[in-house]
């Protein structure tokens, strides 16, 4: 069983949801980012979603836009993102999923990128601006190199599209719980149980994780009752943003935050 499937199987056996943490690779710089990833990975994270910083993150809210900007300004490149993954693999076998934009995957050849990412230790690929209709090359390359694919379902996705999306996904389905961009919200979207059930009816054995706007432990518990995984992004990235002037505080702040969220995934 691959690392992604193992993580979901383990959570299921413990009657809880997976804790999926999002951090931007290289935010605010490579070394701090490694310690930031270590901090969350040592505090209950089951799947690490690594944002690959892009100049034009059109699906992201301000928190993640600024994180990507910090990473790029600190000198993150494709090569350094792969280096970050290799360094994480020295201390952790938690599945890592790239959360990225298609031009970064496409720029030097899709198969080449997938192969390099896989060699570095990446387990899955989620490309925000790549609907399944355009994903043939990515799906084929991921199949060839044993990389799992992750695709998004949105509240606006009609049932007729679900088979197209679930057919392209091999890792899990990411349900975006609301229309909009990433970011902290006061409340969790109301209709998550129905949406997850709607996807599961078509997705069969694929896990369904829920993200976008989930930012407190109470939110996590609410969503964990229905989903196989809960994604926390901006709320973690804010721990970095709030400690930029004293970067040694970032890892402890993230550790405490992650530990708190991890208490919320039980059912």
């Amino acid at each position: 069983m691959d690392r992604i499937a193992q993580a979901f199987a383990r959570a299921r056996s413990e009657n809880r949801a997976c804790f999926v943490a999002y951090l931007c690779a290289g935010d605010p710089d490579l070394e701090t980012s490694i310690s930031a990833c270590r901090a969350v990975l040592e505090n209950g994270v089951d799947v690490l979603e690594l944002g690959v910083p892009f100049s034009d993150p059109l699906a992201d809210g301000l928190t993640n836009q600024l994180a990507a900007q910090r990473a790029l300004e600190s000198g993150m490149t494709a090569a350094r993102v792969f280096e970050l993954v290799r360094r994480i693999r020295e201390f952790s076998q938690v599945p890592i999923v790239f959360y990225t934009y298609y031009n970064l995957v496409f720029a030097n050849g899709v198969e080449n990128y997938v192969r390099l990412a896989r060699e570095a230790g990446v387990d899955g690929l989620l490309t925000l601006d790549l609907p399944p209709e355009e994903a043939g090359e990515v799906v084929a390359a991921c199949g060839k190199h044993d990389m799992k694919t992750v695709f998004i379902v949105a509240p606006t996705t009609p049932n007729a599209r679900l088979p197209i999306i679930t057919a392209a996904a091999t890792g899990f389905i990411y349900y975006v719980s609301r229309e909009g961009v990433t970011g902290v919200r006061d409340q969790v979207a109301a209709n998550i149980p129905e949406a997850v059930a709607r996807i599961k009816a078509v997705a069969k054995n694929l896990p369904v994780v829920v993200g976008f706007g989930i930012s407190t432990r109470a939110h996590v518990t609410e969503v964990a009752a229905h989903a196989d995984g809960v994604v926390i992004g901006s709320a973690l990235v804010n721990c970095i943003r709030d400690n930029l002037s004293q970067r040694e505080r970032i890892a402890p702040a993230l550790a405490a935050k992650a530990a708190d969220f991890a208490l919320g995934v039980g059912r």
Partner: protein
Amino acid sequence: MSNASVPKIDRFSLPDAGGHFGVYGGVYVPETLMTALQELEQAYEAAKNDPQFQAELKHHLKEFAGRPTELYFAERLTNHVGGAKIYLKREDLLHTGAHKINNALAQVLLARRMGKKRIIAETGAGQHGVATAAACAKFGLECVVYMGAVDMERQSLNVFRMRLMGAEVRAVDAGQKTLKEAVNEALRDWVTNVRNTHYVLGTAYGPHPYPKMVRDFHRVIGLEAKEQIRAREGRLPDELIACVGGGSNAIGLFFEFLEDTEIRMTGVEAGGRGIRRGEHAARFAGGRLGVLQGCKTFLLQDSDGQIEPTHSVSAGLDYAAVGPEHAFYHERGRIEFAYATDDEVLAAFQLCSRLEGIIPALESTHALAYALKRAKELPKEKIIIASLSGRGDKDVQQVQAMLAAKTGGK
């Protein structure tokens, strides 16, 4: 030039059902927008085939926008250059000052038909924003326009015009604070408010169906020009020239002539301060294939695929990507691409103002600068049509400052 190597062109065969022009185009957006784009495509196709919609559009294009526009023989520019005849397609005479109203008006009518009450748009130079604001004012729709903070500064007159017409102009402070960032922000708004909002995208760019739909709404430029030049000269022109940011005025003029392969067509990009990283927006001179803001096309990007900064004297051409249909016909060798530098544009801007009494938009002046160059190379019996896509009222303050800087303030 010989077009012997160009395979036969069927201009209506593209894009395919998925929005592809060969390898270019397509739909590269977050899942949240997929259904909205499919609904838009269906609504557009239905409207296109609905005589009532077409009649309504034609009516407003005439009475509100001021179509048809003249095809004007630029006699003094022609004499000055001493070569081919230069005709200008006067889209600058349209209401709100540029060709942009053709598309803005049509999309706003379409949005009404779709029952969308809220309109958003991006704008670079402000011409598309002004056109959208005007159409929304006319039909009583809420209008929000995203504009880079740098563009708001250099096109402050257009910001005021939009606000006068009741639009809310939102400054975008991310990145380079120009058109690309405004598009990102408009897309973020659309993802958030997709159920009640229509995004009036302003150029022949983005995810399907925009490149096709915007092209179709500007086809009127070429349809008129073809008829006008026949009436005037009894024949078709030898060359067509238009500036290309996203490429809407260019594809609007070119489309009707694509199959007349003896006619040379040139899109003129922004050469800025020269073809060096961050100094220009000439995608065919310094770019390569990539995916940005909804479609696959030529992009200015670094080796990792990060989008590179751009520069142009004209906010409307200051953009890292080009419309997919242009990329396709570039690859096919049907549309050629050149660029004009900021300095060439500044010179042509003054020349056209002085000799013709027409102050062109800085964007359109790129086409003009290249047309002057080409006319000089061609004999007097040849005919060039250049698209004067917009008027330069919005640019006079900026040009004044630039000229003052050049002459040391004297």
